[in-house]
């Protein structure tokens, strides 16, 4: 076994894992607030990447602005989805709501295909420097961006939920919607914020991933499935778990592709998902099942 190869696989795994962790955080945001598994989360990432490319290549905006602008746009998309499709269904069964997000994800994917066609578009790396050598392997600077952005986003969200009034109100809604409502918190508005934030986190992931994996209209599904595996693995609703789950899925996938079979690489995450569902459905970090939906 080559030492440098192992380091390379681990680095790739951590980079990919950071993206999955961001997706898992997006799933958690919506799930904690509403109990909904938001199947459009992957499309948020796809939109983030596609919009960044559009801003840069077609509108000729500076790269930093092209990466930041989509965040606001996709936050609006998230909020709009909540207002147009989720809010009217707020008295419906949870299954109905989950299916509505499936519908929205399909519609967004189709819309992206109409707007951008079936091509993938490149985005230049954020820093124009040479790969860094580390223990015989080379670290792509964009990988460092991915890890850094994921860490900053995770920290920012943690601080937001702990210290800001809106964040604390959202936490209250997630814990006990009725009690929060009685305390004067506008639950529907907080739910809208949850969707908007999920959109924002998705767009961040999409923009930072774009230089590594070229975005095209259909990248959302597989990313969402992997991010979802990460969320379940860590324990859905648990953000520390999302990080752990994301890194585990990323590492298993990368090591599996390196040492077992690259063709079955994508199956590894799903196999892990099935095993976790059988052995520990509450996830690695959650002690008990948080929600008891029927």
């Amino acid at each position, binding site marked *: 076994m080559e030492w440098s190869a192992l380091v390379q696989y681990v680095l790739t795994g951590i980079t990919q894992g950071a993206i999955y962790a961001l997706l898992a955080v997006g799933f958690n945001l919506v799930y904690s607030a509403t109990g909904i598994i938001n199947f459009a989360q992957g499309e948020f990432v796809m939109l983030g990447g596609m919009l960044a490319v559009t801003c840069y290549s077609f509108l000729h905006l500076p790269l930093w602005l092209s990466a930041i602008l989509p965040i606001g746009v996709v936050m609006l998309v998230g909020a709009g989805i909540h207002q147009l499709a989720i809010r009217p*269904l707020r008295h419906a069964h949870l299954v109905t709501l989950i299916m509505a997000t499936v519908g929205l994800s399909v519609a967004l994917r189709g819309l992206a295909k109409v707007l951008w066609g079936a091509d993938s578009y490149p985005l230049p790396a954020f820093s124009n420097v040479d790969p860094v050598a580390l223990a015989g392997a080379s670290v792509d600077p964009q990988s460092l961006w991915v890890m850094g952005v994921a860490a900053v986003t995770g920290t920012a969200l943690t601080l937001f939920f702990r210290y800001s009034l809106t964040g604390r109100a959202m936490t209250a809604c997630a814990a006990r919607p009725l009690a929060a409502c009685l305390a004067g918190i506008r639950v529907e508005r907080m739910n809208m914020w949850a969707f908007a934030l999920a959109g924002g986190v998705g767009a961040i992931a999409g923009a930072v991933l774009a230089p590594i994996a070229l975005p095209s209209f259909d990248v959302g599904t597989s990313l969402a*499935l992997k991010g979802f595996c990460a969320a379940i693995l860590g324990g859905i609703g648990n953000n520390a778990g999302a990080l752990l789950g994301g890194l585990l899925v990323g590492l298993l996938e990368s090591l599996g592709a390196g040492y077992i079979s690259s063709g079955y690489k994508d199956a590894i995450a799903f196999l892990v998902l099935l095993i976790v569902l059988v052995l520990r*459905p509450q996830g690695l970090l959650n002690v008990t099942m948080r929600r008891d939906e029927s």
Partner: protein
Amino acid sequence: MSRGWGLVLFAVAALAFGLLVRGPYYLNIAVFICIHGLVALGLGLLMGGAGQISLGHAGFYGLGAYASAILTTRWGVNPWLAMGLGALATGLVAALVGMPTLRLRGHYLAMGTLGLGAIIQIVFNQADQITEGPSGITAIPYLSIAGLPLSTDHRFFFLVWPLLLGAMLLGGNLLDSRLGRALRALGENEGAAAAAGVDVPRAKLAVFVLSAVFASVAGSLYAHYLTYVSPSPFGFAFSIQLLVMVILGGEKSLWGPLVGAGVLTVLHQVLAGAAHQFPFFDGLETVAYGVILVLFLIFRPQGLAAPLRKPVSTSPPGPFPGAEREPVPQASSPAAEIAALPSDGSEPAAPGVKP
């Protein structure tokens, strides 16, 4: 009563169509409506009956198709036997995934089936020693009845619609049976159903396995009809299409999934035709599926086909159209009905009595 007449009407219409229409184009669409209808019927039983969603039904459909393809081309197994073996294997796979996930409350089945469906398609693509990989398996033999190979659209149509009719009869009887009542009860309120003595995980598992078997048989039919299978039709996209079919038609009625399958299959044909001339129609088709799904959930949750029999419980008029979908459990809900009714005509059911 009304269901019986509906089935007779369906049989007459299908018979007339089969006798009058000769064009292979229309017969081909009709065959696909029946095949899709069979999968959607099974999914509808799961969704309407047990209130669970499967996001991997395309995988079960694919398992049936590949089981038939592999068994008949590699080992020369009789096509009918291959269809049965495929259904058996698919049922086992479904049971393996369903058993742990259906014991939990919530939507773990959706996640489990999602993962399973993804794995199944990856295996179809990668295990090229057995499945020939992305290029697929060709020269699958036709099904034959008494030495007559079902090699034309016309002959095949006369196989699929009676099969679909039989499946609908089976589904209808299932809904009327003790299991059906148990399912309707747990679909409304699991706790109440469990308290009334319904073995909730077992009832859910039964209908899930049945719906997987329906999908598998439909997959076998697909394989023997086209005589060619490749991995691409059995992915996540088709699982979503199936979901749209069921929601569009209405999951609470037996006819709903068939109506949905009909509309979507025709829509697909029309849009695919348009996509030849205008490439962006390809994306519009996907948009249409998503928008139809959301609009129907919001504005017509009961689907196109109104339920043939009125639900046992009536919900008070809610402030939102979506509220009609899930009737508020009342004293007259099936769960309470089960608790109140004698279990097999003699003694009153006590809590804890297995269905």
